[in-house]
């Protein structure tokens, strides 16, 4: 199975917030990065532009790292939010980071914006960042990969902290009205990691984490981006094809599944940002995964 995987082609480098789109909504910047009302407004504008009811937020992949203290730049330039530099120098420093605070700052505003989007009649989708994309912001990535290869206790301890924080973040977002949680980690593409590394990360980190999410008493969809889905497939995770009643946009199909969900359902192997029609979507079968 693993040897037959054709890596998912990601076009997200074509940027969700294009210069043209940002130019049309200049009045919402930079507040849309850190204030719930303009953030919700921009998310809805983005959904309208994609002919979708799925309103995604935040518009960057650095909010989790920021919550751990990473300094950001780009609030007022054309390139968007990004980390100023690597926040730490050594793996051992990871465990001394402050815990995520959901009561103030951007994470609190993001959760508030989820509620505003829901109230406006759109389907809120919280974007969350995977393990290694986070590490790439916090540390020189070779130190992260080296620590992972040695299963260095400080890294494993930090990943456990991150899982606990993400679980709380996801729960708060679902309680606030989010119906889709979009998980992505571009640092774990099969092309970058290779099969063996991908299998290990999927089997030891991602799938057990998903199993924990599946135990939440909420309804909704966890969507796994195409790139992150590949390594789950490499680790022999089971996917089941769901045939749609009619051909529709991929994001519309995901929304339909989210609205019908009576528990946490895992979908993936597609991209919520691709504006393409489909007549099938793929569900990750979580039952057989060991915690």
């Amino acid at each position, binding site marked *: 199975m693993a040897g037959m995987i054709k890596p998912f082609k990601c076009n997200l*480098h*074509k*940027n969700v917030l*294009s*210069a043209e789109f940002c130019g049309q909504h200049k009045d919402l910047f930079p507040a849309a990065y850190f204030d719930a009302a303009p953030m919700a407004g921009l998310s809805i504008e983005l959904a309208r532009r994609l002919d979708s009811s799925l309103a995604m937020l935040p518009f960057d992949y650095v909010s989790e790292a920021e919550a751990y203290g990473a300094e950001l*730049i*780009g609030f007022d*330039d*054309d*390139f*968007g939010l*990004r*980390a100023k*530099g690597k926040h730490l120098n050594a793996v051992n420093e990871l465990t001394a980071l402050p815990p995520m605070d959901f009561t103030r700052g951007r994470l609190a505003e993001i959760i508030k914006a989820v509620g505003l989007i829901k109230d406006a009649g759109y389907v809120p989708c919280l974007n969350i960042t995977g393990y290694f994309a986070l590490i*790439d*912001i916090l540390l020189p*990535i*070779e*130190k992260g*990969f*080296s620590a*992972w*290869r040695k299963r260095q206790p400080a890294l494993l301890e930090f990943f456990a902290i991150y899982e606990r924080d993400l679980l709380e973040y996801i729960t708060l977002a679902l309680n606030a009205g989010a119906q889709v949680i979009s998980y992505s980690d571009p*640092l774990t593409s099969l092309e*970058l*990691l*290779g099969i063996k*590394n991908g299998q290990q990360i999927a089997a030891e980190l991602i799938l057990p984490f998903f199993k924990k999410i599946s135990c939440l008493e909420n309804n909704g969809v966890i969507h796994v981006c195409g790139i992150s889905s590949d390594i789950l497939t490499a680790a022999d995770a089971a996917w089941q094809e769901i045939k749609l009643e009619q051909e529709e946009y991929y994001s519309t199909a995901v929304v339909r599944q989210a609205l019908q969900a009576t528990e946490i359902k895992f979908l993936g192997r597609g991209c919520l940002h691709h504006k393409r029609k489909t007549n099938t979507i793929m569900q990750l079968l979580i039952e057989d995964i060991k915690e």
Partner: protein
Amino acid sequence: MKSKTEFLTELSRCVAEMEDDLVVEVAHAYLQQGFSAYEGIMQGLVTGMEIAGELFEQGEYYVPELLICSDAMYRGLDVFKPHMLPEDMQENINIVIGVVEGDTHDIGKNLVKIMLETAGFNVHDLGRDVPAEDFVRKAQEVDARIICMSTLMTTTMDNMQKVIDLLKAENLYGKVKTMIGGAPISQSFADLIGADAYSANAIGAARKAKELAALADEAVQ
């Protein structure tokens, strides 16, 4: 006691097999025997990195392995560099490298840097999110023959053009060659903005840099 050849083989193995702690011990033990730091680098560490590069090309190693191998090489270099003799210091060709302004994705750039250093170039790494002016200023400062730029974002591709425009304004275009790469970059984009080369991967970048360096030398003469 180990022979010099055995030590060099061990250094090479440490790099190629990602032994980033052991390489420091072996490098110190090698120096204690009075062997040449320069040979330790060139016939030990660099040879190990070349092996890692071959394994990467063969699909045995992927990006994590290559990065960890390079970490081992740099840790060995930190031990050897203070022991280099003046006659070992070569006048290597200078290259300036960085991720263009607005982008922080630097894995591809780091891989190119590693392969350029393994190929013997003197690489000045400006890091990521680098303004166009900094590329040109650094190239002037170190008399670089080549500027290498990367980006993963379509929104920041145009900043490569800015660097080339600045080189033209400073009358350096042609004397300082430019090479570009990254997910949205293609040969046609390189042609469009007047870059001298495009490479789709790090191994190819090192090969093209050798060709560009020869061309740049001709242009300077």
